[in-house]
């Protein structure tokens, strides 16, 4: 991330993937533009010849040559579509897949620092901007360049030095384009900002509709909205003015060019001496010159957007991957051993310091501590989510296998982890509970029972096949947590790591679920992070964390008396259980 990102370097590497295709495409664009000069020259010849020698001129060979030219042009057009457009799509697709896979295969901690909105826009909008440059951008660039070289050359060939007179008005166009380009671009930005304001206003209206109505503000709101509309209108008209100005300049320049040719012809300029061909053709060529000049601004915009897009995508594709070991873990886990485990954040802060811990098969542990005490980090470390470059340890072993030699997948298979914020896939409920394999309904209902979710599911319109998360059914906070709990029960792991998975449940349900978990998994390792004291009483061991260190560990009774944290915790508990009006 701190290394200098070079867009050109990035482009080079992208083009290198499809070297032949790109060079072929560029050659065919240039070739096409060259061939495109031929019809003009042929028509010039036809006009001159027919004027010179009325009767003996045979037009047919010329006609066939013309058809040949256009056939070639048609072929070359198809050619660059194959050689530039399709590869640009493929590059887009490859990059998207590459970036997407990075999300899943890179360092979890680093990926989770990325913002969802940014990632989504990188993989859609930004990537599509990059593709626009890789396809149409490169095409238009070489196309314009070729035309801007070939047309003046052809004109000078036909008209001699007089071509300068014909081309002179075009300098005006270049000047106007360079002046107008900026205000137009800024104008469009202003318009999209105004549209954003409108959206925000309507959003607010829908959110506050009760308020506005009861306070009789409807009329004022309408006035405000009309005010916004007027401001949008003025911005739009402003851009239209510039655009219209550019459009008129273009017309003016073209017509001036025509007129210059006519004057040349009238004055009997030497180039016209051979006949009228030069006049006919010059007009055609001038027509072709307008477009490349107009597209300079377009290419500049594309380049800028692609540059930004590439930066964002590079941020994802350059994420470091996971280091995987080679030793498989057996399905039967005997113990986990931590000795002097230290975990460092991306910015170098110490999150966990000198953690010493040994957990044996069948042991049920509760983690307590205030916010930021390191419970989540410890659970993440146990879940195999931290990379070895961010943790230091003397020993971190599952059975006898050290963490850095472990094949990660073999660990994942026996872990059942519930993260702190309920994470739900916006797909069917059944898929959420059994994401890995196709589910059997009977097992599923069993897990739902255990998580106390069965009754809720029966109320859903399509039960297990109900789409959740998206439109339609939204689950409450407690239902989300119970969905995750059901998923955890369903996965039947050997190590259960629950990070505050029960915070949104009422005490009775919580107690029931924890009892079910403990009685069903006497042989498994359980590590639960929690806030509630009432659920801790029966745990084998309670570990108190403070500022990333283990400050106390033991059974409930041992800790309760002498630890201050427990007093504050019980205080909290009392507060939260204060009776509310029914």
């Amino acid at each position, binding site marked *: 991330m701190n290394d200098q990102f070079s867009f050109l370097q990035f482009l080079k590497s992208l083009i290198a993937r499809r070297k032949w295709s790109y060079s072929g495409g560029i050659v065919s664009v240039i070739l096409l533009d060259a061939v495109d000069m031929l019809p003009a020259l042929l028509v010039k010849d036809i006009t001159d010849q027919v004027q010179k020698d009325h009767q003996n001129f045979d037009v047919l060979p010329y006609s066939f040559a013309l058809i040949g030219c256009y056939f070639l042009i048609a072929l070359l057009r198809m050619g660059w579509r194959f050689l530039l457009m399709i590869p640009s799509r493929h590059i887009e697709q490859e990059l998207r897949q590459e970036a997407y896979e990075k999300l899943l295969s890179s360092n979890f901690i680093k990926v989770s620092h990325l913002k*969802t909105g940014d990632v989504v826009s990188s993989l859609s909008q930004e990537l599509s901007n990059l593709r626009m440059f890789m396809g149409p951008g490169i095409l238009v660039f070489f196309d314009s360049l070729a035309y801007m070289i070939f047309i003046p050359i052809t004109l000078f060939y036909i008209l001699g030095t007089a071509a300068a007179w014909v081309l002179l008005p075009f300098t005006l166009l270049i000047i106007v384009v360079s002046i107008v380009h900026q205000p137009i671009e800024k104008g469009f930005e202003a318009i999209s900002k105004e549209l954003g304001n409108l959206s925000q206003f309507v959003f607010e209206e829908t959110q*506050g509709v009760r308020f506005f109505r009861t306070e009789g503000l409807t009329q004022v709101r309408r006035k405000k909205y009309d005010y916004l509309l007027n401001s949008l209108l003025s911005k739009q008209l402003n851009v239209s003015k510039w655009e219209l100005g550019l459009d008129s300049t273009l017309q003016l320049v073209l017509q001036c060019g025509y007129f210059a040719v006519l004057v040349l012809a009238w004055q009997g300029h030497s180039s016209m001496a051979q006949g*009228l061909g030069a006049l*006919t053709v010059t007009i055609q060529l001038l027509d072709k010159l307008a477009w490349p000049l107009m597209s300079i601004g377009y290419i500049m915009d594309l380049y800028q957007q692609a540059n930004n897009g590439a930066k964002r995508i590079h941020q994802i594709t350059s994420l470091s991957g996971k280091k995987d070991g080679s030793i498989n873990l057996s399905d039967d886990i005997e113990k986990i051993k931590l000795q002097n485990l230290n975990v460092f954040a991306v910015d170098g802060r110490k999150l966990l310091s000198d953690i010493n811990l040994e957990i044996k098969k069948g042991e049920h542990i509760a983690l307590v501590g205030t916010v930021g005490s390191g419970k989540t980090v410890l659970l993440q470390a146990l879940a195999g989510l931290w990379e070895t470059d961010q943790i230091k340890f003397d020993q971190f072993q599952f059975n006898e296998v050290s963490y850095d030699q472990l094949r990660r997948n073999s660990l994942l298979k026996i872990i059942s982890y519930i993260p702190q914020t309920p994470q739900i896939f916006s797909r069917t409920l059944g898929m959420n509970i059994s*994401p890995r394999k196709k589910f059997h309904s009977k097992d599923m209902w069993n897990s739902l029972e255990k998580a106390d979710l069965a009754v809720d599911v029966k109320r859903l319109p399509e039960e297990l096949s109900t789409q959740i*998360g998206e439109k339609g059914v939204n689950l409450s906070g407690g239902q989300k947590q119970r969905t995750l709990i059901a998923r955890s029960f369903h996965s039947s792991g050997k190590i259960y790591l629950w990070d505050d998975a029960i915070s949104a449940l009422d005490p009775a349900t919580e107690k029931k679920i924890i009892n079910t978990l403990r009685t069903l998994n006497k042989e498994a390792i359980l590590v639960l992070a929690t806030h509630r004291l009432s659920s801790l009483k029966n745990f084998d061991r309670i570990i108190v964390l403070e500022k990333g260190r283990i400050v106390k560990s033991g059974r409930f009774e041992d800790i309760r008396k002498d630890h201050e944290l427990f007093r504050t915790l019980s205080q909290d508990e009392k507060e939260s259980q204060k009776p509310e009006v029914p």
Partner: protein
Amino acid sequence: MIDLELREHEEKKYHFRPFSLQFSKAHEWDGVAKDIKWLFPWIYPMRKKLFFALSFFFIATFIRISLPKIIAKIIDDVLVKQITPFTFWASIFVGAIIFKIIADISYKWIVTKCGQNITKTLRSDVFYQLGRFPMAFFDQNASGKLISRCVNDVTNLSSFFTANFFTVIADFALIIGATLFMFTISPGAALIVALMILPLTIFMLNVSQAQMRWGRDQRNLLSRLSSHTADTMNNLAILHSQDLSEKWSERHSKLQDIFSGFTIRNILTWGSFSSTHVFIMGITYASVITLGVFNFQNGSMTIGNMIASFTYVGLIFGPFIEISEKLNMMVTALGSVKRLRGLLPENIKQVLEAPKDLAPAPQGNIVFENIFFSYRYDTYLFENFNLTIPEGEVTALVGRTGSGKTTLAQLMLGLYPINSGRILWGEEDLTSLNSTRRARWISHVSQDLFVFTDTIRENLRMWNEEISDELIWDRLKLVGLQEKIASFEDKLDMIVKAETLPLSQGEKQLLLLCRALLQDPKLLVFDEATANLDQLTEEEWLKNVGLLFHGRTTLFIAHRIETLRLATNIVVLENGKILKTFRKPKGNPVTEQELH
């Protein structure tokens, strides 16, 4: 895996055949006449301007088409025969050019301006219509949908009104006009052109349609890819800890394959059209040239006209690519018209509200009389409900979630129509109170802490210019927010949004109390929500709320026991029925036992 079945399904539905008449069956064009008729009331006021625009447009197009003919004249009469002086035709040429540029600018400017104004009126009307919908409408429609109607759909539509629409017409006019002009020069050449553009037009219409469909599928798939990515990011911990990477990557890749199927088909279809277009143009060009030369050789055509006929080929074939691009935009616009029609059934006239009604507040108790109310048709939430809220006193409403507390408050505020029965305020019917009086004398403090995007001042006085800054500062001092607001750089002028307000939830609640104090209502509906009050001490809270309740008829939805101390009446609701009522002399709290 519904997503993955899409490919076959879509392919079955649509086979691209370049020269068939399938474009005529496209359902995108269904009901176009009705849609355009629906737009008519908005276009009608602009008719004079649009008439001018149309005139200018015809002049500009006519000149554009006749320019090659003028050049032909110059070639024949000035350069070859030398029977007319150059200055004569040159001034006609220059005059025509200047006239054309002026006509062009004029019609484009008028059309753009009219279009933008029509769009503006339409936006304003849609917003007006939102204000007329019953509350239930907002409960049923997601805000995203309404935003897209008010903003995006109208934007799409504006492309229909602005120059784009005329560009397509101008292009068609150019094709037809140039062919006609060509006919006057060389009927044979015109016939060749007509024969060639017919299949090309059919091809073009089919390509446009195919692009529309595939473009839609493409967007659809892209948004599915995006939601897959978003879903991945939202479930990162699960995916990383459960060994699901492979499966998820595979799904992503499958979606991409389908996506790329559409894009590549799109590129190829478009490519085949573009190449065919060039090739057909080449053949036409060669034929017209051959014919022109033959005609010139047998003396039936002047050299100037021969050259003009060459130029016309370019004029005729040029616009095809542009038309097929613009057709897509028009179809998108038509889709938006259809959606807008659903929202705005016919043209509406915005009615200005009546002037402010300065009549004093009604006096007397609030009486609910035989109220029947239901949100939906099937079950009544309130059935024959009766309640009296005594004037000048504080009545607390308690009960479980879903017992009807909030609904009762909303009925009083006139947000939902009552099925039968009435709510009286003294002698007057509360629900038929006109809106200015209702706004003036009734205040609602809700638990959603609503703040709108404007200055703090306007958020407090709600655009009522009669409220002075001194009064605002005075009330802010009363609720204890004076120092906090004074510490902001822009003080009352600070522009706030719901999400950027630098106040804690508790302070926000105080701000809204201050808003209600400034309004000085006679009837207060108050929804106390405990969650927002964490940072306020009980004392502060009771002091401020007491201040607000003092001397007003108050209905308050209570959540906390302590606040019940303020109430003289307590009504316990359950399932839309009154379970129990208590009446207490002031200052004597109701005990918890009494409530159960």
